Every structure is written in structure tokens, then in C-alpha cells.
């Protein structure tokens, strides 16, 4: 247990903070600590969590991607048009088209990074502009509202009316999110490819000399994020019941902040699915709690921003460096013990 906690400091710190936050909020409002509210939070954060686990894989492999949210918008649009051309389609076709287009866009990023040696932040900022510019140019910013019937109908796997009249609903985005989390967890911690991704992210040159296929690592990580972005795009279209070309614009930075809050390291080699999920949930829970407490919606982002800022600063700060006198007294105590 001790080893488990020491090995996952960020995740446990985050969990502890979340528990404290939840206890505080449940005293603040009586609506917060109900099962139906917990499911509401899950429903709202499903899309972001799918994005986040995809981004996690790229971060672990030492890259960064700015373009995935815009890529998801492209996927939404292409899928909607393709389904229209197919004369309706169904869920299986929707997932296949969205996944394939997403992977394709991810592979473009991978090729730029690997083949042309453009560092990932520069490459993905460029593709961000290309994807978004072309999407807005070709669609002229027009949204699609007449989506196929099956896509916009809410799919509920489980529902139950609670004693107080509120509903507990397990909807499709949440189920897909759980599957995506499980798949990502399985890939990064139970397969050779996953171990290679960690090794590559931690030390690319070392990994290369060790015989790891560097090209494959790039294509797998960006391809995985592309797949997740495609699925997330489809889920967002399903959830919002419309396709708006700039709906996901700007989402990338929010997801990046939440992912890193969950312990993924920029620079690679570190991060876990559970931390990533906790990071996104932390932000959603804060917003949900503020909402229930009746705080003005305009203040949400400010408070969330402040929390992320404090959390990131504290998690990176080494207390002994911030407060040298504390470290000294600790060192003295340490030496007197030994």
C-alpha cells in the first residue's frame, strides 16, 4: 500500500483534494452528494475524458498535440457528410468513419513529426491552423442540424428513478468513455507497445539504441489520439445533437491543463489513465459544485483557472526550495536522527 501511494503521489494527492472538495461541497449544497448528480458530472465530462486519455498517450511518448480538438471538429463534419451520402448509416458505420478519419488526421501529425523532424508543438500548431482554416473555409462556418435520427437519439443503457424523483442515467457517451479508458489503460500498461511508449518518452535516444522502433512509436501515439479524437467528436455530436464547426475550438488547452493536472508530464515518460480521469473530473466537479452553490457562471472559469494554477504551481514546487528555512530544520532533524 505504501509503495502504491509513493508510486502514484500525484494521483493520490488529487484524490485527496477531490475528497476534501466533495465533502466541502456536500455541506455547501444538499443537491451535490446525490447519485444522480454524480452521473450528471460523468455525462458532462465524458467527451473531455475521451480526449484526455488520447492526449495522455501522446504526452507519455514525449510529444504534445494542440490540433486534436479541431481535428475532432473535422471528423464530426466529415462523418456527418459521409453518413448523409451513405443514406443514413448506423452506429457501426459512424464509429468506423469517425475513427478512420481521426486516425488519418493523427497520422498526418505523426508523419510531420517523424518524417520531417518538426518538433511536435510546432507541427501541431501548424496543423491546428490548417485543419481549422480549411474546415471554416469549406463549411463557411455553417452548422449541420439535420443529423441522422439514430445519432441524435439519446441512448440510455440504464436508468433508475431515485426516491427524490431525480433520474440516474447511464448514457452512451459514458459507456464509450469507460471503454476508451479501459482500452488506453490496457495498451499503455499491459502491452509491450505501452512499455515502449513510456521508455521512448522518458529517453528517446536510449529507446532508439535499445532497438525500439521510433517511427512506430510516433505513429501509434498520434494515431491513438486521432482515434480518441474521432470518437470524442462523434460523442460530442451525439450529445449536442448538432455539428458546429467551431464548437470544439479552444477545447484543446482546457483538456491539456486537466491532463497535466492529473500527473502527465510534459516531456514524456510519466502519466496514468486514472490520474488523467481524476484531472478532468476535478475540473468538472468544481464547476458542478459552483453551479449548485449558485455562483455566477461568469465566475466559473476564473475559479477553475485559479485552482489549476495553484494546483500546478504547488505540485511542481518543492517545498524545501520555496521555503529554505523549513528545509534546513528538516535536514537538522534528519541528521540528529541518524
Amino acid at each position: 500500500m505504501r509503495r502504491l501511494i509513493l508510486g502514484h503521489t500525484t494521483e493520490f494527492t488529487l484524490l485527496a483534494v477531490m475528497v476534501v472538495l466533495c465533502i466541502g461541497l456536500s455541506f455547501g449544497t444538499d443537491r451535490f452528494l446525490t447519485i444522480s448528480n454524480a452521473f450528471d458530472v460523468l455525462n458532462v465530462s465524458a467527451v473531455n475524458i475521451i480526449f484526455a486519455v488520447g492526449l495522455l498517450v501522446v504526452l507519455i511518448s514525449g510529444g504534445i498535440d494542440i490540433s486534436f480538438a479541431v481535428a475532432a471538429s473535422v471528423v464530426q463534419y466529415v462523418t456527418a457528410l459521409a453518413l448523409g451520402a451513405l443514406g443514413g448509416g448506423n452506429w457501426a458505420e459512424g464509429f468506423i468513419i469517425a475513427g478512420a478519419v481521426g486516425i488519418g488526421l493523427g497520422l498526418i501529425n505523426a508523419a510531420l513529426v517523424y518524417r520531417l523532424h518538426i518538433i511536435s508543438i510546432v507541427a501541431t500548431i501548424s496543423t491546428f491552423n490548417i485543419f481549422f482554416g480549411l474546415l471554416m473555409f469549406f463549411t463557411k462556418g455553417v452548422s449541420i442540424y439535420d443529423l441522422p435520427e439514430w445519432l441524435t437519439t439519446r441512448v440510455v443503457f440504464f436508468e433508475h428513478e431515485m426516491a427524490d424523483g431525480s433520474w440516474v442515467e447511464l448514457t452512451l457517451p459514458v459507456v464509450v468513455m469507460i471503454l476508451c479508458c479501459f482500452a488506453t489503460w490496457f495498451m499503455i500498461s499491459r502491452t509491450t507497445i505501452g512499455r515502449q511508449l513510456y521508455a521512448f518518452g522518458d529517453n528517446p535516444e536510449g529507446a532508439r539504441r535499445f532497438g525500439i522502433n521510433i517511427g512506430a512509436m510516433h505513429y501509434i501515439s498520434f494515431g491513438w489520439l486521432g482515434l480518441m479524437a474521432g470518437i470524442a467528436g462523434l460523442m460530442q455530436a451525439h450529445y449536442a445533437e448538432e455539428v458546429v464547426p467551431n464548437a470544439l475550438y479552444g477545447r484543446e488547452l482546457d483538456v491539456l491543463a486537466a491532463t497535466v493536472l492529473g500527473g502527465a508530464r510534459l516531456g514524456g515518460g510519466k502519466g496514468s489513465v486514472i490520474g488523467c480521469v481524476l484531472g478532468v473530473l476535478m475540473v468538472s466537479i468544481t464547476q458542478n459544485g459552483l453551479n449548485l452553490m449558485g455562483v455566477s457562471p461568469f465566475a466559473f472559469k476564473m475559479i477553475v483557472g485559479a485552482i489549476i494554477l495553484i494546483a500546478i504551481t504547488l505540485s511542481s514546487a518543492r517545498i524545501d526550495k520555496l521555503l529554505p528555512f523549513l528545509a534546513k530544520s528538516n535536514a537538522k532533524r534528519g541528521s540528529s536522527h541518524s
Partner: protein
Amino acid sequence: MKAIAQKFNATFGADMTGPAIAFLAVMVIFGLAANNFISSATFGSVAFQLPELGLLTLAMLLPLLTGGINLSVTFTANLSGLAAAWVMQSYGGVDASPAAFLLGVLAALATGGAAGLMTGAAIAYTRAHPILVTLSMMIFLRGLGEFLTRGGDVSGFPSFIAPIGHGSIFGFPIPLLIFIACVGIWQLLLTRFKLGFGLLMIGSNIEAARYSGLNTRRILMLVYTLSGLMCAVAGVIMLARFNSVRVGHGESYLLITVLAAFLGGIDPFGGFGRVLPVFVALIVLQLLSSGLNLMGANQHLATALWGVLMIVVMAARTIVSTYIASRRKKG
């Protein structure tokens, strides 16, 4: 040919090659494709559009040179603009005096500087990755701005500030002159001042810089404060140009500023780069969008082409450097 290349490198520096070739390419292609491209109208529009993006790019430049990044530039500019707007509003709005405007500018600079200082202190003292600190700062500042303005815009300023956004002196647009002055200051800072040298050293190797006796924390804090001050200048120019302040104005410039800086030969890992190639790169980007505008395409296509241009330039750099490396091996 080789002699010309060497002469060029000696005069302008090797990092000028990319932007210069891109500049020539854009001029030739649009000069041939659109018959009214090379005209004073085009250059007028470029001259008026350049400063907003340009000033924000300058704000992005110094952190990039230290190996960091400042993702909060656009919202720092918005908030600084807000500060200026409020000072003017509280001194009578449309009837505010020039003194009130000056006070507003000072308030803007103070706001920008304070935001920058906070960011810089967080980065310098906690050693958190600049992307994270400035990203969360960005989310915070955006939220703060939206909270304070309730998502609306603040307008109603005295008429004498309009020339700062639209006026000209001797045929030169005033915002362009302000921008060129800021380019000059940054150029001086990087080439003639200890701070400029120090920040480049930090970008190359922060540990080595610290062991060489540079006060890296102080330099980092100064860099982000200067970046915040430059955002404030951009915020005031934007206020004068739009005659209103809204949180979210210029939001789309954020990633373009990074693109412009890298296009101008700034090393993505920091430590190397100059101001003038970035200036040329900015002109290229603006010419590209004006040219496309003339040909009837919209800004979105220009955005996409900015991305393509960036990839082409970066790819060309890789190919040229591997070519040179292979030549050296043979020789």
C-alpha cells in the same frame, strides 16, 4: 551563387533566409496572380493589420527565447485594455481628458506587468513547465475578464484616441510606428543589454547559466514582466482600433504568434533567435492574408495557408540541414 549566399548570411544572418525566401515567394506569386497586389492599398492594409499580431508576437518572443512560452498573451492584452477602459470610463467616458487616457495607459501597463510578474514568479520559483503555468494563467485571466465584463464589451472612449488605431503621421500609420518602435526596443534589449544576453543563455542551458552566476530567477521574472508590458501595449492599440474592449478579442492570434516566431527562425527549444527575421515573417503572414483577400478568399483560407507555410519552412530547414551535414561528412 555561393558568394551571394555568403554575402547574404554575413549581412542579414542565416536565420533570415527562410523569411526572406518566403517574402519573395509571396510577392512574386501574388504579384503575378492578382494584378492589383503590388499597390499602396495592399501595403496600407498590411500596415494597419500588422501591429496587433506583431505586438503580441513580440510579447511571445522573449519567453520563447528563454525556452518557455507565454500562452496568456492575448488575455493579458484584453485585461490590460479593460484596465485602461475603466480608468477612462470613470473619468467621464467619451469626455475623458488626455490625462485620463495617459492614466489609463499606465493602468494597462501596470495590469499587464503585474500579470507577467505573477507568471514569471511562478515559473522562476517553482520550476513548473511554462506551458502549464501560462496555460492556467490564461484560463484564469479569461475567467477573470469574463467575470468582470459579464461577457459583454466596454466601449465609449474619447475621440482623440482613435488616431492611435487609425491615424497616420507623414503617411505612416501610427500603430505601425508604435510597433516598429517596440521592435527597435526588443532588438536593443537582445543585442545591447545584459538582460538580453542573460535570457538567451537561459534558453540555451538554464543550469549552466545559473552556475555561471546569472540570477536566473530575476531574469525569468523580468522576461515575463516585459512580455506582460508588451501585451498591455497591444491591448491599448486594440482598444483604439476597435473602439471597444471585449475579452476574447484577438483570441485567435494566440497560436499564430507562436507560428510567426518559429517562422522567424526562433529555436523552438530557446536560446537562439533574433527580432528582425520575426518582423519579416510577420510581414509575410500579413501579405499572404491580404493577397488572399484581394483574390476573394477569406481569412480562414489564409489561416490554413499560414499553417502550410510554416510546415514548408520547417521541412525545408530540416532538409537543408541534413543536406549540409551529409556534404560535410563527404568533404
